[in-house]
């Protein structure tokens, strides 16, 4: 194991390198070759470095450092503990896959110039890394805002389209609402001694009321970034607007950074945790998950669908956070460690599989220029690489064994199964409902993913232009392969990583899963006779069985295979347009979960010669929550407009009065 101080310096170099690469992008800003073939691979290399350093760092002791930067009294503090290392690992490895893909993806003549894009992209990466490293509120917020701004510019790459500008605006608005929450949270947590280093916050003794205030401000602030309902509205707008690698980065990495914030504040900076925080978080998480998955099922735009699926996964992660808080508050360290491990594992899973899926939609988008599910189909024949790799991501997100999504869901369900040991009977009774809802969400996710994959890649092409679609290039393939391999490896070898995650839970909760992770092939978090799952054996036996059946059938019954047209139901005029559409696939969900949606239907009259059927599904929150607030803001601003006179002397009077007031205050 390397010296932990040198690890710290190596890690510090990565954001610096990213910034440098970004600036180099401006040197020959119009050259796709320079940016795509040289700078983005370099950035990938830096990402890989970060990932491997973090892997080594997870076992190392905590290191901290004060940088000779920043304002006089607010020097920048850096601290790397296991939690930070884990999220650096996530950033490093996920961004590596996305970086390679981007190298082949960005082309000339699409919105922002490549050089500028390269700068924004790498600043975004660097700021996320710095957020995780920061050890004082000042640096944290500077990096946080840089992250928000750089991602805003990335979202609005195609800024000439009005709907993309609108999406960017909503994103920026919610991001800043969240930032205010975080700012206030730090303000509360300094606890009266006006020290804004995290060190001081850890030492501050807050009353339960103030601690609760800090927790809920953090939940609001970071929840806005993560997409917790009802602050989720920016996600389905921003993700379709952004270029696919950016969506991947935002969904796969940035949302998890928000989770990092919640974990940091809750378990590290606050010295006390109350169990009912956990219950609230759990409830919000459950609702978010259910809301996200139900909305994902009725989407017709593939990137919007994935955005809602991200909301669902964030909900599951928050559920894990809530469960961890509950267990921790009731002093059940082993179970808290289990829930935390599930939460962190799900973060990593989501980072890999959602990035993979967003990148594949990017390839599909490039190949077909089509985002609407109603005009895709049959791409598995034209784009086999993308299709088969996307299948891995699909199965992973759907939470099917033996891939990675299943591991974290398995761990979470195990954690739920232990809740009857809790000393609080109310919580005891409510939690089975939580487990049931989680199971429902997981099963619905499978529904959504079958829809996603089946409509895009399977069936017949719904448009004739799809027959000319080209598979993605070599660099893009490498990116997809990297992420898909991550999904598979995380699914099959969970034990080594969970052993590393023990360092995180030891740091945060003072407990770990410890000796229960003895065999590398057997996942038995509490005890083997209570629960065990061995993905490696599982996969191996599936593969062996499939092979055996294939060989057996080949050996004994090798009849010919003839190709023919499928049965046309006796109808001679079948066209590919008659396949089930995305709307059709979502229809049962739309019917069952009708109260979730705000639906507008336009049905054709029976005498219409060219009938059109239209259904628009919208979010209740827009109209019930955001529209009234927007109206209120508009009314207040029109009141404030009364101050505006238009005469220059009045404005000078205002300035003068302000000056006088300030001077009087200083007196």
């Amino acid at each position, binding site marked *: 194991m390397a010296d932990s101080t040198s690890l710290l310096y190596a890690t510090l170099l990565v954001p610096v390198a990213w910034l440098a690469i970004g600036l180099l992008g401006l040197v020959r800003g119009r050259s796709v070759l320079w940016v795509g073939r040289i700078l983005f691979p370099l950035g990938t290399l830096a990402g890989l470095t970060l990932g491997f350093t973090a892997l080594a760092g997870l076992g190392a002791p905590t290191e901290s450092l004060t940088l000779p930067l920043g304002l006089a009294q607010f020097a920048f503090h850096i601290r790397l503990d296991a939690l930070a290392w884990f999220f650096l690992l996530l950033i490093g490895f996920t961004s590596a896959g996305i970086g390679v893909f981007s190298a082949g993806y960005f082309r000339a003549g699409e919105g922002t110039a490549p050089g500028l894009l390269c700068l924004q992209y790498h600043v975004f990466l660097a700021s996320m890394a710095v957020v995780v490293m920061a050890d004082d509120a000042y640096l944290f917020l500077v990096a946080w805002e840089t992250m928000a701004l750089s991602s805003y510019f990335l979202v609005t790459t195609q800024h000439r389209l009005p709907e993309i500008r609108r999406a960017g605006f909503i994103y920026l608005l919610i991001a800043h609402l969240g930032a205010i929450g975080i700012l206030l949270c730090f303000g509360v947590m300094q606890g009266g001694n006006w020290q804004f280093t995290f060190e001081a916050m850890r030492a501050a003794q807050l009353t339960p009321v103030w601690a609760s205030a800090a927790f809920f401000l953090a939940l609001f602030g970071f929840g806005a970034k993560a997409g917790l309902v009802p602050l989720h509205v920016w996600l389905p707008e921003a993700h379709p607007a952004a270029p696919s690698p950016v969506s991947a980065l935002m969904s796969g990495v940035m949302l998890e950074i928000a989770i990092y914030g919640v974990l940091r504040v809750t378990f590290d900076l606050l010295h006390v945790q109350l169990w009912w925080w956990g219950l609230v978080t759990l409830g919000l998480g459950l609702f978010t998950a259910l809301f996200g998955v139900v909305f994902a099922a009725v989407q017709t735009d593939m990137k919007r669908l994935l955005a809602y699926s991200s909301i669902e996964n964030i909900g599951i992660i928050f559920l894990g956070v809530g469960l961890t808080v509950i267990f921790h508050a009731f002093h059940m360290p082993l179970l808290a460690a289990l829930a935390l491990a599930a939460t962190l594992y799900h973060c990593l899973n989501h980072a890999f599989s959602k990035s993979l899926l967003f990148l594949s939609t990017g390839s599909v988008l490039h190949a077909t220029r089509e985002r609407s599910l109603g005009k895709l189909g049959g791409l598995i024949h034209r784009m086999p690489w993308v299709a088969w790799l996307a299948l891995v991501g699909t199965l992973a997100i759907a939470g099917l064994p033996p891939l990675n999504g299943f591991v974290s869901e398995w761990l979470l369900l195990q954690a739920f199964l232990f809740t009857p040991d809790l000393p609080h*009977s*109310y919580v005891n*009774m*409510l939690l089975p*409902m939580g487990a049931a809802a989680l199971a429902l969400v997981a099963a619905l996710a499978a529904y959504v993913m079958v829809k996603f994959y089946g409509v895009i890649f399977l069936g017949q092409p719904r448009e004739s232009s799809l027959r000319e679609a080209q598979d993605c290039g070599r660099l893009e393939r490498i990116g997809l392969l990297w992420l898909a391999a991550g999904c598979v490896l995380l699914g099959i070898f969970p034990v080594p990583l969970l052993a590393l995650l023990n360092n995180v839970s030891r740091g945060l909760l003072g407990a770990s899963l410890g000796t229960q992770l003895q065999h590398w092939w057997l996942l038995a978090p509490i005890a083997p006779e209570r629960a065990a799952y061995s993905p490696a054996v599982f996969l191996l036996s599936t593969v062996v069985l499939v092979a055996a059946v294939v060989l057996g059938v080949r050996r004994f019954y090798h009849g010919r295979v003839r190709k023919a047209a499928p049965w046309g139901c006796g109808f001679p005029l079948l066209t590919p347009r008659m396949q089930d559409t995305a709307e059709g696939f979502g229809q049962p969900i739309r019917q069952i979960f009708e109260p979730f949606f705000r639906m507008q239907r336009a049905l054709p009259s029976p005498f219409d010669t060219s009938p059109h059927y239209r259904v628009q599904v919208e979010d209740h929150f827009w109209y019930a929550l955001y529209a009234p607030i927007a109206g209120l803001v508009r009314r207040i601003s029109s009141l404030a407009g009364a101050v505006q006179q238009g005469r220059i002397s009045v404005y000078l009077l205002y300035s003068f009065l302000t000056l006088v007031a300030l001077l009087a205050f200083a007196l």
Partner: protein
Amino acid sequence: MPTLAFSSQLINLCAALLLLLSFAMLAQRRVLTLVDLFAMQGGTLFVSIIVVAWSTGQPHLYYSAALTLILKVILLPLILHHLIRRLGAQWESETLLNTPITMLAGLLLVIFAFTLAQPISQLANTVTRGTLGIALAVVMLAFLMMITRRKAVTQVIGFLAMENGLFFAATSATYGMPMVVELGVALDVLVSMVILGIFFFHIREQFDSLDLHNMESLKED
């Protein structure tokens, strides 16, 4: 967890079955099946009273068991069957809420009933503690069924099921009421059945239907 005595396990089982039957009634749309379910509930109640009588050695409970058997398993279902056939009210059209939502509401009611029953059952150290909560839940579920249905017949069945729950509460928590009270209740149920039966015919005569929403027109404006 200490293992309970066999008789308490049996009573727990009966309690669970009662709850299960209540949920089945909540979900059932056909009126005749509803009556059968009601009879089965009576049967379960009968068994549970027998078990209580046998385990606590209280002979008067055998009488109330017999009363239950005659009244709730044989007599009332027969009357109801007869009534329904004569009225031609076999079919419940639609419930006010769909089944899953009704059941979800039922689930929440169960949790509520249990939290309600917890302090009471801690006072009483009779056969088992969870059963009181179930009895309360059965009452509430029957109430819920009455709320969500439209036909007069189902309302009556709901009313009778509610009485089942009360009766179960009485036997499980206090080893039965005094015999006089029990006889009185039984008589009440029978009389109310007769009166309601007469009511049905009047309602139908008036509106040509047993659908209760017709009665909304009786409201004065």
